[in-house]
């Protein structure tokens, strides 16, 4: 029971533009992989999601003290900027 998925929608969510050829190839690749993982989807598990820890060793988060640590200089931060002006990163207009 494989699911039908909308490769265009997924590409949009992932912000990657794909050519029609790519869409076709990736669509079929994903189908093959998803079919393989179906065995997992069909597995009955008695483990509750509430019991799942994020850390594989089931460690807890340690909170850090609110004390300043050295950071990047302005120039270092912008050193790889594809486009910058007046100390700001520049991009084409972003609609809200």
């Amino acid at each position, binding site marked *: 029971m494989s699911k039908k998925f909308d490769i265009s929608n997924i590409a949009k*969510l992932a*912000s990657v533009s794909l050519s029609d050829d790519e869409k076709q190839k990736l669509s079929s690749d994903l189908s093959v992989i998803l079919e393989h993982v179906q065995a997992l989807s069909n597995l009955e598990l008695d483990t509750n999601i509430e019991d799942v*820890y*994020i*850390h594989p060793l089931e*460690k*807890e*988060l340690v*909170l*850090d*003290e*609110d*004390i*300043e*640590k050295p*950071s*990047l200089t*302005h120039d270092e*931060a*912008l050193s790889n900027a594809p486009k910058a*002006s*007046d*100390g*700001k*990163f*520049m*991009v*084409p*207009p*972003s*609609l*809200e």
Partner: protein
Amino acid sequence: MNLKPTIGIETHIELNTNTKMFCRCKVVDTEDPNISLCPTCIGLPGALPVPNEKAIRYITLLALATGCAITKKGMFHRKNYFYPDLPKNYQISQFDLPVGENGKLEIVIDNEKDYVEIERVHMEEDTGKSSHEGTGRIDSATSTSLDFNRSGVPLVEIVTKPVIQSSKVAVAYIEELRQLAIDLDISEGKLEKGNLRFDANISVAPSKSDELGTKVEIKNMNSLRSLERAIDYEIKRQSSAIENGESIIQETRHWDESKETTTSMRSKEGSADYRYFSDPDLPNMVLSDKFVNQVKESLPSLPHENRNKLVETGLDLSDSNVLSKSEKWILELYFKVFDNTKDSKATFNWITGELQGQMRKLEIKSLPEWFSPNFLSDIIQLIDANKISFTSGKVILEELIQKDTTPDDVAKKLNLYQENDESAISKIVNEVIKNNQDIVERIKNGEDKLVGFMVGQIIKSSGGSINPGIAKEILSKELNL
């Protein structure tokens, strides 16, 4: 058609911690762009998040202060969407295990208490700031510039349940929340600086219906005034539409301050798929009982508690509300002065009316060091005992704000003490009657308005301060009026 509006409000509060939420870059307030950055807050490859203990403490304070249940074993989630001011193109937030849930906030509306229920309080990080260059309007910009100083600043998001039913309540709620954040000392609460930002979700449905209508999100309200107007406008818009048989589209609309309307934002349709999942870089956050109790013990006096204390002194709810939202020193001053005068109304009026009025006129923001609460209680008590007039009290106050002296000294210097002794006043009255027989005759013949003239003469001949009320009484008695 009887329609009722339902409003829910989402508020973001910037915490005034020293460093950012997931890195130890300093939180800065500057026009200088991109000066407080590190690999983590600009999303460099290989960077990792480390949470700020104080921010967690602050959000726990807020959650406890609003009576929320605290989530003992919580986690952070990634909220995935692409936008240039979001360095990682996901925001670290909380999805289904927020720090606090199911609380409420007391507000005062029309001299009565009410509550706004809170759905959740959760922790997240702020984005950078975009500026759109070009003509200034978003949809005709030529480019966008980005400043990431704000990226990663700790934000608390508070979401109410959809229980608000008017713009008035919405405004009261924000004012209360703002004051709470200030009293907890977790935020400066300056709306104009963006310390506190809010969006509203509004729907309209028939009054008799149990279901809510289609909700519309309204963004870009930058002040309480815009909040009020935007809500009112949107309720009207939706109501008209429904009455005309049109359906409401679920969308996000933008409040246009200049046009005073909400407009559709064409880029968004329906609801976004944020693909929330637990952030693998941040293990489960377990808040121990010890931690929560520590935070609970550190809770200061909250606005509604202050109101209760004020009401106990005899103030009504409305006035108590005003004081609970004033600066701390005003509240402290009130209690100190009340302690002496035991007159809540007078204390309230003198502080919020005269004192603040004079400070505004003199353009000062805080009282001088020498100003003691006793000055005010003295003035109030002197007036109460008829030793000085109300007007004299104002004069004395004005002096005390500007000079390091005492009420007594000022009253003496400016000769403001009133003579209240009846026999002393009688003497003067009779003296004046003797010297103004012609006026007395005219009064006896019906020219009542000359009584005022006589009182004036009495006051003049006394050298300034005798109790005018008593003088008039004695005069009337002497003349058999």
